[in-house]
């Protein structure tokens, strides 16, 4: 972390805790003595703050901003602690620590979030300082996972291994993390602020168009790499697709340009109405052109400041993300195996095994969308098991996806059968990545103090309804996302099929939206019609799928393509036929 304001500081390569094993070195950013001291002191500070709250020296009103700065929320039944996982990347020590925390301080499970973080739903207040101490032991913390500050920077879960990637975005994510952590000017923004970075110009897997700032690594006419900058995207009660505000910015100006955007937002963003305080409202009210002009004018004051990124500084960070010791292997075509006799294995290969830029390797998605458990929930034993699998098959690392799954990034093709057998034993081999039952789902009214309706039971019912794998795979790619309220933590606006929980005279009801999309041809889903009860919305989704299967022009036409071709009319007529 930087001392402040992006100014590089003297490096002291001393680690209090033992270095990671050989298989885990050089694959992710490693804390130095400064980082370690910061997280340890933060935990110590919070121990005192918790003690004073429990003794009654401080009131809840005084304590609340302090706990929020440490990722501690008050939910419906208990406190909730959100732990930062920068761009979703974790090593096996960290995974085991999360399993230990789930077992020791919580109720045996944690939850993968849509900002690639992990949260625990049942910690007591007294246990939080102990948890923060334990997290610090493995270079983790809960700083800036709440409050009106710059939140965890997210990225492509396949960053660093995707074949279609121009450049690994993680070093830039890390640079942004260090710049934004404890940035004194941006500790009290009008509202929370989210940044996403992708290194793949042709396929956005980080939903950059729906972030306050989206950063895309691109190449200019001279063949140089730099960044395309998007601003003003977001979900919530006013979903907005971000606007491209700068086609190309040189790498050395990344931080100064981001700082200029933040300054304009901090100065002009509304603070009188929290529902109009996000940057998307400011960009819209100013107009994108005037907002961009204001950013450019501010940037002129910043561009040659200490915020300038040198190639040496980027390389210093990037060396921590150096590729692991890949073997030299022949490229392997999985098509034959995908057509093999073991249909379950073939389906898993086709759906959950993803391309890798190194011949002979693949990335493997572990979907945490079991029939009986809430989407994204991971038990203590599963955290341990994933850590073991990461050590055995993927250089000791795994990545949390914004779709509430985990990815083993670097699996040798020759290891896939053994990995699959182990995943079957662990009940973690469901071949549904990016299919209808790979549902994003917020905690909803089962946990969240803000929710209007439950989301998890709807997801579980959909899982049961679509549990026929032949049918599921026949449907093909189709995203379903469920939010328990208009704050849209479940990203329902950008689902092919979105479900929004609402409050109808104190009772839960659900609106259906169709046609949303979170990637390059971004679109916001449209509400289909009047709301349903819980059973009704599951029936409605089933009807929508039946219409799609009957109307698609071929097996290759996806649900989204079909919806865009036909419009909402046939879906609406079928869903509301009995009304």
């Amino acid at each position, binding site marked *: 972390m930087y001392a402040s304001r992006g100014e590089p500081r003297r490096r002291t390569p001393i680690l209090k805790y033992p270095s990671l094993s050989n298989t885990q070195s050089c694959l992710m950013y490693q804390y130095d003595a400064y980082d370690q001291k910061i997280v340890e002191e933060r935990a110590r500070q919070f121990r005192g703050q918790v003690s004073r709250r429990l003794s009654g020296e401080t009131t809840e009103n005084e304590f609340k901003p302090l706990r929020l700065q440490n990722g501690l929320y008050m939910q419906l039944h*208990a406190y909730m602690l959100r732990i930062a996982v920068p761009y979703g990347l974790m090593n096996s020590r960290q995974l085991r620590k999360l399993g230990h925390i789930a077992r020791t301080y919580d109720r045996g499970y944690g939850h993968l979030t849509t900002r690639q973080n992990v949260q625990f739903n049942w910690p007591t207040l007294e246990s939080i300082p102990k948890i923060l101490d334990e997290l610090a032991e493995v270079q983790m913390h809960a700083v800036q996972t709440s409050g009106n500050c710059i939140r965890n920077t997210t990225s492509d879960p396949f960053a660093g291994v995707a074949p279609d990637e121009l450049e690994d975005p993680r070093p830039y994510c890390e640079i942004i993390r260090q710049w934004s952590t404890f940035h004194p000017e941006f500790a009290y923004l009008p509202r929370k602020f989210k940044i996403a970075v992708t290194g793949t110009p042709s396929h956005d897997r980080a939903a950059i168009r729906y972030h306050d700032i989206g950063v895309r690594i691109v190449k200019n006419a001279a063949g140089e790499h730099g960044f395309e900058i998007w601003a003003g995207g977001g979900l919530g009660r006013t979903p907005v697709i971000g606007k491209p505000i700068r086609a190309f910015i040189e790498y050395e100006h990344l931080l100064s340009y981001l700082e200029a955007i933040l300054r304009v937002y901090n100065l002009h963003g509304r603070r009188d109405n929290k529902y109009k305080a996000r940057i998307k409202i400011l960009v819209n009210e100013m107009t994108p052109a005037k907002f961009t002009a204001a950013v450019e004018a501010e940037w002129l004051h910043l561009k040659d400041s200490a915020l300038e990124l040198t190639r040496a500084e980027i390389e210093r960070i990037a060396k921590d993300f150096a590729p692991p010791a890949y073997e030299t292997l022949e490229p392997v075509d999985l098509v034959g195996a995908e057509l093999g006799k073991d249909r379950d294995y073939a389906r898993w290969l086709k759906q959950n095994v993803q391309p890798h830029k190194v011949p002979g390797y693949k990335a493997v998605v572990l979907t945490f969308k079991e029939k009986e458990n809430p989407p994204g929930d991971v038990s203590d034993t599963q955290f341990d098991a994933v850590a073991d699998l990461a050590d055995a098959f993927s250089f000791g690392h795994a990545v949390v996806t914004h779709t509430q799954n985990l990815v083993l990034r670097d699996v040798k093709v020759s290891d896939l059968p053994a990995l699959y057998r182990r995943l079957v034993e662990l009940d973690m081999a469901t071949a549904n990545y990016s299919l209808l039952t790979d549902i994003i789902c917020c905690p909803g009214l089962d946990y969240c103090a803000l929710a209007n309706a439950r989301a998890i039971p709807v997801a579980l019912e959909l899982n049961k309804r679509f549990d026929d794998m032949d049918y599921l795979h026949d449907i093909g790619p189709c995203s379903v996302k469920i939010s328990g309220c208009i704050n849209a933590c479940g990203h329902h606006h950008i689902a092919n099929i979105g479900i929004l929980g609402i409050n109808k*005279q104190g009772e839960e009801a659900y609106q259906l939206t169709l046609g949303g999309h979170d990637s390059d041809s971004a679109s916001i889903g449209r509400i289909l019609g009047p709301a349903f009860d819980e059973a009704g919305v599951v029936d409605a989704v089933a009807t929508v799928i039946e219409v799609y299967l009957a109307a698609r022009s071929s097996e290759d036409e996806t649900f989204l393509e079909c919806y865009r071709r036909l419009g909402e009319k046939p879906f609406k007529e079928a869903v509301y036929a009995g009304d």
Partner: protein
Amino acid sequence: MATRGGTHFVISASLTDSGAPTYLALDGGWTPDLQCAAAVATEAERDALLERALREERTVCDPYFFDVRVEGGTIDPLSARERIRAAGPTTRIRRPD
């Protein structure tokens, strides 16, 4: 008088040490059981109880009131939120302590 079909009011808050839902009881203490809560019928009684709860901020956080219907000695919250808050999550918890 409570609104929207309610007959009474109940005062609730979250316990400071655990965050667990708690309800102000007739004896002035706090109970985790909604059925043991003090259910009062008038706004004056409600406001008096809320004022008392607000003075106990070491023990509890963010006291508030909500509408209930009391029939046959049973307290029924009018909203899904309060029913779930009283009963716990409706989905599987890995280890229900």
